[in-house]
């Protein structure tokens, strides 16, 4: 049963991802990206991380995609012609990606978990949200604070960039 769901979500995710990078209209891309993000959220559920799934939906689907769509609308980015859709070195880039994929796939396929397993068994993970919350404010307090700095910088930076050029 789980396997079946996995395959369904996977296939949808892959197809929509391919569409994201291949369609000409950025608006369509953005919409496909939303679908893809949703599948990823579903994957998190399969991986017993409902909290992550929620975060995924809120942030990616909610915030990020809105930003994207907003940008597309504001900048009035219309369709581009087919021959313009790829840039000069794209064949090289594509070939590179494919070669790397096969190499990586071989490595992924042959790998296995060898490290000693941790304490968070499936039962512990049932309280996913609680566990994560506790960890974030104790063990992970340091990166948590740093991330806040990142957000501050991003905030200030985005405002600066946009405002500044408006002045000019």
């Amino acid at each position: 049963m789980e396997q079946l769901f996995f395959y369904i979500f996977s296939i949808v995710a892959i197809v929509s991802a391919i569409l994201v990078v291949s369609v000409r209209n950025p608006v369509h891309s953005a919409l496909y990206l939303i679908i893809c993000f949703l599948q990823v959220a579903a994957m998190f559920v399969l991986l017993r991380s409902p909290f992550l799934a929620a975060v995924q939906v809120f942030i990616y689907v909610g915030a990020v995609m809105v930003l994207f769509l907003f940008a597309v609308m504001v900048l009035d980015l219309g369709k581009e012609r087919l021959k313009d859709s790829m840039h000069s070195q794209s064949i090289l880039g594509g070939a590179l990606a494919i070669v790397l994929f096969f190499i990586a796939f071989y490595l992924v396929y042959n790998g296995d978990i060898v490290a000693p397993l941790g304490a968070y068994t499936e039962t512990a993970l049932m309280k996913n949200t609680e566990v994560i919350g506790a960890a974030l404010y104790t063990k992970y307090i340091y990166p948590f604070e740093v991330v806040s700095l990142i957000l501050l910088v991003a905030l200030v930076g985005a405002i600066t960039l946009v405002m500044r050029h408006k002045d000019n």
Partner: protein
Amino acid sequence: MPTITHYLALSLILFTIGLAGVLIRRNIIIVLMSLELIFNSVNISLAAFSYFLQSINGVVFVIFSITVAAAEVAIGLALLVTVYRTRRAVNVDELNEMKG
């Protein structure tokens, strides 16, 4: 039950598609979306490892990753807007004031 390899394979496929998008497409907004694909694929693999290793690190890492990615999108789009305002161009090839 899907194994770790299943998840990693999915992650890899998405990663490759994202990478290919960055490398192939000219439209910067689509390049930015491809970047998001990359981050998502990484998140899947982190979450999968976390699950199969019975460890919480991966999940927490995903949270940080998502947050950072969101911040990055903000910066990226701000840059995009800036460039668009000054140059009215959103294609990689057109950013050719400087020789590469």
